[in-house]
């Protein structure tokens, strides 16, 4: 009687299973195979205890379904890529283990059993992985803090221990020591010494080596020779280069502080030899609208970017930009940035070379897919890994200014005969203030155990006490210090490449940052216009060609003035702008042009916060309620909310002496006036005492707001006609 068989026990399937088992056995019997299998285990382990949350919010079923529906195949591809990375890295490490093992075997003149080979492969994979992983944790703790620090318990303890006690160089030395011991241990045996000696002798006497030596030497000489004479002598006929060093969220007080020389030496040194605009103010303290304002020289109601989620059509219609004009006049234009610079990839602003990450819904899905696998992050975030895992460039937790400097220096080193306009935009000082080793611990305290140990995650709850606030400021300073060092390297490269004498260098920021200077002003930028921490930015200007002497400029200047000033200096036609040429200030002919700076808030992401509470703002839904996802995965503001958001903006006007604030609320427009001469921190509203000044400035501010032709004044409010 035939035995009943399960369907999967047919002859064919049994054969297939046996074949699979055989492949596994063989793989395990070889070092690389065993190494690969060892790391593949991590792929599985990563899922244990992984939280399927999106940026701190558990995705509900509908959201999950929508994501799976729209991005299912991408998710599968990403996960396969992670798996493959584990296999390749494991195999490579296993190969190293095998090579060392073979060396040991030869020394002892014996053969390894498959099981021994497997153990060696696994050991090499684990040791290698431990090194890479710890190294990366210590170097970039922010990308691991969600998986370890934030989850508390032993994970948190282990991470803190690593970052407190180890540095990347200590780990390098440790690994080197292990490798040396592993390679040298067999030399205790005479046979191994003989083998090594014989090998080296054979190598030295081999024809190949002899034949190769001469060409290599000649080659090296030629390469260095070319490098030495490559740089052509500066030709004075051509226009100067422009290097814009833009630091996200950099406050003016960090550059102009008394102790800047100790804390941020490169910035301080740059300031020493620059024209220092002490009162530079931006129009919209948020990156996207601010950069468009800066590079078009036009107010937001003229270039159309009023918030960070414009539609593709709005992004395409910003009008002429300075880089575009320069490009038409023979400049090579380039922008280099990390995560905050994604705006340049979505908006054409006239750059030939756009070396910035791209950010959309797909990027988020990709990043979340990686976040499940902390063990693959050391490889994914490596220089090689970034080519395969492109989404890591857009990770706010991974914005190492040193890497940005590398990319900028590479471009400077290869600058051709064309003059260039290069913008390097550093994101590190933007929250989450994630700076690499050693900067994240430079100003912070080891004893700190709150939620912001390595960074200030954007969605983490607000600070509980002064310790937390102190920590956030220290993280920010660390991030500025990291950027400072990168700027130093870029300026050194400029010197080394002989470009310093023909390059205008401008250091500026897209906006500043509130850092709990006052409890009613909170943290961040663009949500309110109380105080100037968010709109007051440093401007340093070096122009070797025009022989500007370093000095302070106390008068108000605006972001819109950059375009006319630069185009004046470079002798190219000025596009239509709202700004003025600051040449008289640069040359030191005047202290102030008595300019008026205008400001507006951006989009409110949340229902309220310091400076935009329920009594201080007009209500509209949170960011998720007003934005939508386009077919090309781009996020945009729903057109029906556009007017509401513009009507709700706070506006301000600033002269050398006064600041006037307009805040529409449902209880009427709230006006405030501050005397900046007597009260630079803007703590005392003097509207009642200076009603005549206020009335004059009100007219001015209305006139500015009504430059937006669609608007009219009704009951004191500026609303669409």
């Amino acid at each position, binding site marked *: 009687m035939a035995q009943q068989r399960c369907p999967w026990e047919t002859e064919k399937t049994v054969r297939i299973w046996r074949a699979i088992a055989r492949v596994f056995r063989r793989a395990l019997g070889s070092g690389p195979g065993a190494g690969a299998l060892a790391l593949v285990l991590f792929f599985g382990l990563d899922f244990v205890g992984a939280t399927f949350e999106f940026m701190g*919010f558990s995705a509900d079923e509908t959201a999950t379904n929508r994501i799976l529906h729209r991005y299912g195949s991408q998710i599968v591809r990403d996960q396969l890529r992670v798996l493959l990375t584990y296999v390749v890295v494991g195999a490579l490490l296993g190969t190293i283990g095998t090579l060392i093992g073979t060396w040991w075997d030869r020394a002892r003149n014996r053969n390894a059993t498959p099981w021994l080979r497997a153990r060696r492969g696994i050991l090499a994979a684990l040791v290698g992985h431990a090194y890479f992983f710890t190294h990366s944790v210590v170097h970039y703790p922010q990308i691991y803090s969600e998986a370890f620090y934030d989850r508390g318990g032993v994970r948190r303890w282990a991470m803190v221990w690593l970052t407190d006690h180890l540095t990347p160089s200590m780990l390098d030395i440790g690994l080197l020591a292990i490798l040396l011991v592993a390679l040298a241990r067999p030399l205790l045996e005479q046979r191994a010494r003989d083998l090594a000696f014989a090998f080296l002798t054979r190598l030295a006497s081999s024809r190949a080596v002899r034949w190769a030596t001469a060409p290599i030497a000649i080659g090296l000489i030629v390469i260095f020779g070319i490098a030495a004479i490559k740089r052509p002598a500066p030709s004075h006929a051509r226009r100067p280069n422009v290097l814009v060093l833009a630091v996200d969220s950099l406050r003016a007080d960090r550059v102009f502080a008394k102790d800047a020389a100790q804390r941020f030496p490169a910035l301080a040194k740059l300031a020493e030899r620059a024209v220092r605009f002490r009162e530079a103010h931006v129009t919209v303290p948020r990156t996207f609208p601010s950069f468009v304002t800066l590079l078009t020289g036009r107010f937001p109601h003229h270039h159309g970017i009023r918030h960070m989620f414009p539609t593709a059509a709005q992004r395409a219609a910003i009008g002429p930009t300075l880089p575009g004009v320069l490009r038409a006049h023979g400049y090579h234009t380039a922008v280099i940035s990390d995560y905050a610079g994604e705006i340049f990839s979505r908006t054409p602003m006239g750059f030939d070379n756009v070396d910035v990450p791209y950010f959309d819904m797909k990027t988020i899905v990709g990043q979340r897919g990686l976040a499940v696998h902390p063990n693959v992050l050391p490889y994914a975030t490596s220089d090689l890994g970034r080519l395969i895992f492109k989404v890591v460039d857009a990770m706010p937790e991974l914005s190492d200014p040193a890497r940005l400097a590398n990319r900028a220096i590479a471009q400077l080193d290869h600058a051709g005969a064309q003059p260039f306009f290069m913008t390097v935009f550093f994101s590190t000082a933007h929250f989450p203030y994630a700076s690499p080793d050693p900067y994240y611990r430079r100003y912070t305290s080891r004893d700190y155990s709150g939620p912001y140990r390595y960074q200030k995650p954007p969605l983490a709850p607000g600070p509980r006490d002064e310790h937390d606030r102190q920590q956030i400021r220290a993280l920010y300073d660390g991030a500025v210090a990291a950027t400072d060092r990168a700027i130093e390297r870029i300026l050194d490269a400029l010197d080394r490449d002989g470009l310093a004498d023909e390059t205008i260098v401008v250091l500026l920021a897209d906006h500043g940052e509130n850092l709990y200077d006052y409890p009613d002003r909170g943290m961040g930028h663009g949500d309110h216009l109380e105080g100037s921490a968010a709109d007051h930015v440093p401007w340093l200007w070096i122009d070797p060609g025009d022989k500007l002497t370093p000095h302070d400029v106390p008068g108000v200047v605006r972001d819109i003035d950059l375009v006319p000033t630069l185009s004046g200096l470079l002798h190219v036609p000025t596009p239509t702008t709202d700004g003025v040429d600051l040449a008289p200030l640069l040359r030191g002919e005047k202290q102030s042009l008595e300019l008026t700076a205008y400001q507006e808030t951006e989009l409110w992401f949340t229902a309220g916060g310091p400076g935009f509470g329920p009594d201080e703002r007009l209500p509209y839904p949170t960011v998720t309620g007003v934005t939508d996802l386009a077919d*090309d995965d781009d*996020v945009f503001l729903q057109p029906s909310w556009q007017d509401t958001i513009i009507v709700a903006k706070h506006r301000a006007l600033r002269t050398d002496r006064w600041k006037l604030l307009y805040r529409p609320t449902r209880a009427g427009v709230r006006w405030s006036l501050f005397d900046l001469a007597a009260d630079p921190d803007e703590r005392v509203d003097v509207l009642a005492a200076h009603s005549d000044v206020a009335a004059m400035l009100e007219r001015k501010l209305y006139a500015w707001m009504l430059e937006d032709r669609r608007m009219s004044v009704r009951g004191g409010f500026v609303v669409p006609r």
Partner: protein
Amino acid sequence: VKLFCLVLTLAGCTARTNSHAHAQPIPAAEAERVHAGVPGDRIAYRFIDHAGDAQLTSPPLGDAWRLLSYPAKLVDPYAGLRGDDATRVIELALPDADVAAYGTPHALATERARALRFDPVWNRTRAVYESKRALFAVGESRYNFEVTPVTKGELQLAIATPPASNAIEFVIELDGKPQLKRTITANEAGIWISITLPAPNVHQVAFVTHGNEAQTAFWGAPLLLDRGGGAPRFNVLFVVIDTLRSDALPVMPRLQRLATEGSLFEQAITAATWTRPSVLAMLGGDLPTAIGQSAEEMIPSDGDRRRFYAVAPPLLPRVMEAHGYRAVAIGNNFFLLGYPQIGLTLGFDEVADIRHPMLDTPAITNAAIAFMEQHRDEPWLLHLHYDAPHWPYTPPPQYLKKLPPIPFPQDAMARDYLGEAAYADEYVGRVLDALDRLHLSDRTLVVVLGDHGEIFDHAHSYTIQALNQPTLHHHGWSGYDELLRVPLIFRMPGTVPPKRLAQQVSLIDVEPTILDVLGLPQRPGVRGRSLAPLWRGEMQAERPAFVEGQDVRVVRAQQWAYLRRSDGRVTLPGGKYEDRTEELYDLAADPLEHVNLAAAKPDRLASMRALFEHEAPTQRDAPISVLHLRVSPGDRDHVVDGTLHSDGAIALRGVAGAEASPVDAHTLKLTLRGAAQVDLAIDPPTAQLQLALRRDGTPLLPREILLGEFGLPLMASAKQLMLDGDRLTWIDAVRPPVPGERGEVLLWRDPSKITPLALSPTKKSSSEVAGMMRRWGYAQPGGR
């Protein structure tokens, strides 16, 4: 930068807007005429229509509704309720996964139904989706209805809980006494359970549920019948056969026989070239654009959907329901349900959407016969939608064998298509047989028609570049006669004479014809005209037929057809590019439309252009601009009262949590308690408006009343709130203002003209839609 929050947009839900319009009550005299003493049952009370008047004690419905994670749901847009009350009447579709057995008694596979994957856009998972207009209940709840007692009263309804919910108890109390207790266990969750309960001489009906606040329950399509109370004279069986060309009729013996018993319109022209707009036109008596949703967009935008429900066109099912009918739809037509994004709910009491490409035809038939057997003596509109001739052409093989040779375009797939037509014919025949068997044929108006044809003529084969779609074996985006001409048959012995009518008629005439036969009043202002005079032999001038489609519109008059594309770029087979913005055909000389005369006959072209412009519909505006006064929720409930005065006539459109009583035609007394809203219309919209309100007895100052789209105190400096002239436009709001949470008093007005959304689909998005449609089987791949 800082795009960290975007993910949450994925969770963002679609706001639904409720309609302002109520179904009009029936004048008594007319009701008398319609219920002309025919033996049968009468619908004495439609609970859904009175949901706003019912006394409800319940945990907050709105919150429970928002928390209800079951996706196949919709707030009924036609109930005319506002605020939290809007969720009293909902539409809910529950799936029955056993399509093969649908319509016959079978065990319900709730497990399988629960495993079905929800598709928010196309609803393409195979199953039967039974949707009912229902009362929504949560936790410990009670709906109390005061009804007019009838001697032989009987309650009919279906109850259900959402899939995967725990046991909840349903109780029906008649005059305060529990008459039925039924606990729906977790096992039975997610299916409709029918209930019939005698309710003689009952004054009060209460629908009560017992459960916790997380549990929701549905009272589906509840009706109080008056057994033997006298039904309307006629029922309506309205059968649409999808994609049926008029020249397929020779392979359909049953329809041919039907045509000899009734009137056949030999030159019936569809109003739109694909299903949703076409069905809209036949149920609405007008062109799709004029009804409120044009034929251009496969997926209506949120704005389109809102406008459609705001206009609330009185479609045939809603009109018949208001006149005492039960309106039921059974078919394979995913545009009939409102919760997937492609669909619009049309106001049927119950819809069974049978989503299966092969098993649908027998399932529709069985379900239709079962319905007629169960409701033999009740008044009904039964709408069947057969999908067989629609792609894919996969008839059961036996129908291919007996196909007679008929004149039809030479095409490899023509036989398969005709096989499907024959297949549908046989099953429609079974429904007609059942009608005979139940002795209903004499008092049932049978209407059978196609919603559009299909392109089989290879001379009409090319690819529309703007849509990236081929025309051959497709419909929706071309406009030749083979796509426009459909069968149209009316039968009711004694009323409709056996005739063949050669005059050109349009499917927009179908609804006025049905109303005419039923003796219901015609609606003024629609393009459709009753066809009854034609079969009565009265002379009527033939009217031009206008047809809407995607990218294409057609006007057909006398012997001429004029086609116009919004984007005329087409690629011919072989890759040649051509501009087909305008086409002109002489149907008398060239009935197959092979010779485009647009260049050769400039005079005729000019006159057809003029006719096209004359006939082309414009988007219907919302009826009149509606004014909204809202009190937002606050920490505690305030009473806001006062008067609203206008020079114009004030018409109340809806109230929620408020009382509004007219003092005279120009003055309204208002009382709003807590969070509440009053909607009203003022005619003319330019009339002056004055508002004097008090909060808890203290006069509200003009600065406390927030005006317009942004909710701003625009009149802060005024002494009293008086709006006239230009100031009236200050309160116009493209979108309602953000309400706030502090008891704000808001006043705004829908703009008097809703500007049509001028969004032409981009190449990219439309090619994506095209790709999606192919992947999901709505359109077949390639132009074979």
